[in-house]
């Protein structure tokens, strides 16, 4: 009887995901925390639209339907939210040199 394949499938990606060198893991965690903190200082409205567009990858119409605002508002709100996130990121002391990243 062969070993349950499920095991390999589970371990494979997990190990790849958890074994990058400690330094880049730390940088990544740092970036995540920073982003999280910055997002938390933004308005719920702006956070919402960034999540819908960038994380959920929704189109303007879908966002308009869910948030229940006209498409023009989706566009301007999205532009403001992106600008706000960029501005906050630039204000971070260590990142002044490299814009968002």
């Amino acid at each position, binding site marked *: 009887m062969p070993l349950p394949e499920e095991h390999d499938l589970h371990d494979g990606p997990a190990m790849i995901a958890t074994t990058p060198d400690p330094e880049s893991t730390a940088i990544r965690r740092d970036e995540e925390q920073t982003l999280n903190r910055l997002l938390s200082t933004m308005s719920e409205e702006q956070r*919402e639209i960034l999540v819908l567009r960038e994380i959920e*990858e929704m189109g303007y119409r879908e966002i308009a339907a869910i948030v229940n605002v006209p*498409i023009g508002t989706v566009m301007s709100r999205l532009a403001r939210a992106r600008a706000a996130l960029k501005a906050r*990121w630039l204000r971070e002391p260590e990142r002044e040199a490299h814009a968002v990243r």
Partner: protein
Amino acid sequence: MPCADSLRVQAYFDGELDALAAADIERHCEACIECRALLEDLQRIRTTLRENSRCAPAPSALRDRITRALDQESGAWTPGRSTGWRTAWRSRPFRQGVLSGMGGFAMAAALGFFLLVPPSANPVLDNLVGAHVRSLMPDHLIDVVSTDKHTVKPWFAGHADVSPVVADFDQQGYRLIGGRADYLDRQRAAVVVYQHGSHVINVFSWATDQRGVPKNTTRNGYHLAFWKTGNLLNCAVSDTAWDELMGLVRLLQGQSDHDTP
């Protein structure tokens, strides 16, 4: 000071512009430093958010709204009717659910530069109307000008992904004037162009694995009539009267009966 076109650049970045408007923005960005910088910013913001996405959970109020929308939808939506359309366009089941709930929302978009035809959850329909309207612009209608089906038909072999029915019905009042290839539903669709009186009728053909045929419909004053020929989905689009449009559809359907082996 942001460029006056910044919202359009953002819409371009978000993939919300039709091909014509997108080309316009690309040209603009070649000349505008601000907009090029904006595009870079937009990309950096996207990368940063997506790489760190697990730290950005949807706010709970939003989560509730989405769940409610999905709940309402599950009752109203009949699967199988036009789901096939959607899977071609939206791969994620989550979005299908949310999207299908949109039909009832009035989307008053007074944005001339968008291809925002009234409330619609069916991008293919919008693209068909958009392609028809674009084709009426100068120099867009026809790639191969010919009234001879033996010229038009072989032209498609090198320019489109499908081989449509091409026939001339001059005697019945539908004159073959040429053919064109349009990008539609992620493929190079074949478009056969007929003239009927002063009206242009574009007949789009593209491959589909969908079983049903979309209902005939009218959008922005243009009629869209659908039928299938084997695995090809055809759509005739025009502002001519319904019965005149259907006249051509019937002729083409008769033709394809002869053509198909």
